[in-house]
């Protein structure tokens, strides 16, 4: 008897629940419909390609398509490990990103502090505008600007070197100087934009704190060391952790336009995951190899992001991404 009552009441609650679920759906139909284009958009352009990473496990053949190409298991990964490509790509991608993140943030903080010291409003406005200029141009133009500077025959750098009586540099055939060039160009393009975040944090500092320190006799260096830098620390830590999450992702436009797609002489030092995948697709039509690197990148990137997020959550739950 009691058994039937419970099943009966269970049926009622489940009926009620499904009805209330339907009611919420109905009550929010307009807001849901407003999200629908975005849901479809990300489904098509982001979610549909995800299972496509299956291509990493087959020997993809254009005429046979995804489903009839032969399954090869981990052969593509094995090839990438044995050829040393995987190690080289990981090393380059991670090291470049580390240099971008660390040097970039330090330089941006440096600029922001100095910008804050400039009292002449006109000077500050004009220089801030000029520092933002590189952010607004495409990497295609940046590639041309670098070429304009570094070209062996007519480049500005070599004109200067020749005028000084020194031997001109063969930049485009010397891989060893490229890490410096790439890091410098990246700093150049992002510094103005990045310093804005720190500059905003600086203008938010309570004037009274600084005045108090001056009354206490702190000099300018002490002010920066003991007041400004500690106040910038949270912003720095958050930006650092955010960018560490993306450490496996390279900036394709930067590398591709600076180095070009054919200059194999430089690849040992300049090839990152994105450029390798691009070449295996567009130059060698090796879809499976490209996918294998992408899968490796996505899985490791995912692990790194979730780990950094876990760390952020421990330290400062408010800033956690998810």
């Amino acid at each position, binding site marked *: 008897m009691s058994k039937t009552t419970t099943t009966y009441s269970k049926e009622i609650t489940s009926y009620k629940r499904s009805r209330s679920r339907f009611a919420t759906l109905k009550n*929010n139909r307009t*807001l849901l*419909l*407003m*999200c629908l*284009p*975005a849901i479809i958009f*990300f489904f*098509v352009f*982001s979610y*549909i*390609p995800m*299972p*496509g990473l299956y*291509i990493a496990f087959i020997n993809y053949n254009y005429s046979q398509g995804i489903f009839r190409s032969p399954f090869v298991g981990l052969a593509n990964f094995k090839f990438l490990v044995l050829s040393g490509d995987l190690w080289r790509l990981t090393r380059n991608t991670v090291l470049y990103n580390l240099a971008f993140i660390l040097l970039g943030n330090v330089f941006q903080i*440096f*600029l922001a502090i*100095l*910008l804050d*010291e*400039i009292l002449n409003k006109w*000077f*500050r406005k004009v*220089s801030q505008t*000029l*520092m*933002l*200029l590189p952010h*607004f*141009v*495409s990497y*295609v*133009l940046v*590639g*041309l*600007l670098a070429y*304009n*500077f570094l*070209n062996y*025959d*007519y*480049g*500005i750098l070599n*004109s200067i070197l020749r005028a000084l009586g020194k031997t001109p540099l063969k930049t485009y055939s010397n891989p060893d100087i490229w890490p410096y060039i790439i890091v410098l160009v990246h700093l150049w393009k992002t510094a103005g*934009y990045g310093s*804005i975040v720190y500059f*905003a944090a600086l203008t938010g500092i309570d004037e009274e704190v600084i005045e108090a320190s001056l009354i206490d*006799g702190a*000099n300018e260096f002490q002010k920066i060391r003991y007041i400004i830098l500690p106040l910038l620390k949270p912003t720095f830590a*958050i*930006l650092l952790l955010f960018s560490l999450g993306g450490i496996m992702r390279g900036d*394709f*436009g930067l590398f591709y*336009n600076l180095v070009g797609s054919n200059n194999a002489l430089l690849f040992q030092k300049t090839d990152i995951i994105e450029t390798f995948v691009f070449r295996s697709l*567009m130059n060698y039509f090796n879809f499976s190899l490209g*996918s294998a*690197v*992408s899968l490796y990148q996505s899985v490791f990137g995912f692990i790194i992001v979730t780990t950094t997020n876990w760390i952020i959550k421990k330290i400062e739950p408010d800033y956690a*991404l*998810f």
Partner: protein
Amino acid sequence: MHYSKRRNKIVGNENVSRLKIKYDRSALFVRSLGYVVIGTFALICLIPFISVVNTSFSSEKAVMRQGYALFWPREFTSFAYRLLFENPNILIGSYIVTILLTVVGTSAGLFLITMTGYALQRPDFPYRNGIAFYIYFTTLFSGGLVPYYLLITQYLHLKDNYLAILLPSLMNPWLIILMKNFLKSIPHSIVESAKIDGAGDFTIFLKLILPMAKPALATVGLFLALGYWNEWYNSMLFLSSSVLYKPLQLFLYEVIAKADFIRNSAAFANVPSQDIPMETAKMATAIVACGPIIIVYPFIQKYFIKGITVGAVKG
């Protein structure tokens, strides 16, 4: 050290003035360092562009002899520009394609992003967290280039179609999050009182929220527009040589890499092949392709600054 200074201050007036000098000296140093470093870096940001402009106005022969121009043109001439406009159809076509892509993509994308961002910040929308995570997850894990390429070319059949450039850049998670954060500042009570007056959610969005969200629209719209104007990645992937009018950045890329366009223009203008101004014409193309953005950006930069300081990073 700290202590003695404070005592000095209390002890006598002459000590205070000496302290003041000391403070002034370190401040003066940092301040002048500021002017020097900031001024130098600002110039380093500007000089490459000056060099390109001056080289584009130089004579090819002088450039061959002495290298690219830096602060002033070498033997001033506008020959490179005259050559570009000798046969301007392709250039004008590229401009029209880029402008159309920018205008259509920005308006459509802005509408969709604002609509999504609005729904996702409504505190009374029960599915907001689920949908936000669904969108955010695409930044954590992706299928990579190859499946994306196959999707566009084999399944959506968009190769050599401008839609392959327009569609993928319509929305991205960061701009939706940015918009959501912007719209959060509009008090929910306004929405609630409109609801009591009997307005539907979409009407509220269209009539009430959109007019109030103008600064947000300007910022996100400019992010989108800059993206479309500077777009070359999807163009390079999906537009083959059979497409005559390329978006400007791809056009510039191909002029730099292959210089076919310069050779064709020279042939059209009956310029003998040894006189073709290869290097200066490349620079002139760069100026023509990037000029508008360089002229416009000083007037729109404040919206970008607002965008970064609102906190584009938080989910």
